């Protein structure tokens, strides 16, 4: 039980990191393009 709980927690953390990582990297890249254009 303890092992399976740990697995679920690790799964949650890694999936959230991956998804938010993709989102924030994409938003960062898009906004950097906007900044570069503004200069």
């Amino acid at each position: 039980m303890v092992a399976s709980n740990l697995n679920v927690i690790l799964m949650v953390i890694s999936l959230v990191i991956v998804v938010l990582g993709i989102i924030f990297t994409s938003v960062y890249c898009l906004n950097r393009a906007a900044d570069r254009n503004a200069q």
Partner: protein
Amino acid sequence: MHLIPESWAHLHILVSVFPSVGLIFALGIYIAAIISNSDAMKKTSLLVIGIMGLVGIPTYFSGIDSITELAANPKFTEDTVANHLGWGIAALGALGLTGLTAWIALLRFGRKPLSDNATHLVLGLGVVTLALMFVVGELGWEINHTEIFLPTAKTPQLWSHVHIILNHFPTVGFVFALGIYALALLLNNTVMKRTGLALFVICAVLGVPTFVTGNASMWALTDPPVRGISKAVINAHRDWALYTMLGLGFTGVTAWIELWRYRQVGRFSNPFLALVLVFGVITLGIMAETGHRGGQINHPEIRVATDVQPTDPNAGLSVFVEKEINQVIWFVPWQTVHFFGYALIFGTAFAVSLRILGFWKSVSFESVHRILPLGVFGVVTNVFSGMLILQADSSRYLNEITFVPKIIFITIGGIAVIYYSVSERLWRVKAGEEAPMGAKWVAALVLLSWIGVILGGRLLPYV
């Protein structure tokens, strides 16, 4: 699988959706062109309406030949066919007239701007044709789709009815989007490029209710089973529907990024425009196969010897997803991601909409427009995670009373957001300035829709 029709009946069910659903898209673009007073877009719509008029010809002849072809088939009664044919002739007559008027307007005005009278004449005729098409479409379902009139056992048959109508919107719409977009790239016309991109996004959003009603139809037709309908054949269609959702997701997001970029940066990125085209072509291919497999579910008359139908109801990707997502180790992580997604969506919708409604007027619209990608990526996250979570217990979710409003609000909220990246007046709202009244209505609609989505979702387990 044979995608190229080998019988008149097959050709008829394929081409007949274009004059009806296609006309809705053509008139939609036409109305947008009239509102934004873009002559190029008006003429593009006239060209599309003119082409729809010509598509009426194969629709008529394939229909007539289908009657001869299927006369001996006891499944189709003479009365239903005669009703469909009678109204069909009236609708195609109106369509022909609309198409002819569109061609005449195009030829007469050439490079000159279109007169108001000509513009309104085509619009009026188009609306009358559409009303007739609606009647013909409904009478058409009566010929073959007897399942939609079955009494409700557990899941309402209304969803089978809604699904066979709705699925033509993202598909036929996508053909239009791709056509307009490819033409726009050839002509290097910015207005048409943006129209094509916006259409891709609309089709992607419409994919959501289509997928969901498809799931509901599956339950309506298999639990309890309906004679002549195979779960294995449905599952094959459902697997391709999953691929279509992925295709729509990629095309819709890249298209939206370009709409956003054009607004924020003032120009497109050519590699990204090419990427949208590549995604669009691939998605159309996937969609064609999905639609064909969908047609196979309840059209035994179009099957040919090479169409080998699946027989194992436990095979395929959808069944695998259904099984896996029910494991805690997959369900809980994806649900957590779903919550992060809606925090992103609501946070973004909240901030942008409140600025438009008059809060934080010291900030220009240009500045809040920058955070929109966060919300859109949130939508993508949630469509994907939501699709997986839905598979865990779709029969139960789909029959909850708050699920339908939730999906309707997602569709409205998703489409309304396009306005933020296409409106010229909103873009010009500087720091300290009031947003136009029309934009405030859209902002209120966006905010209320996403509030509705969260309420509908949160109530799912309890009512």
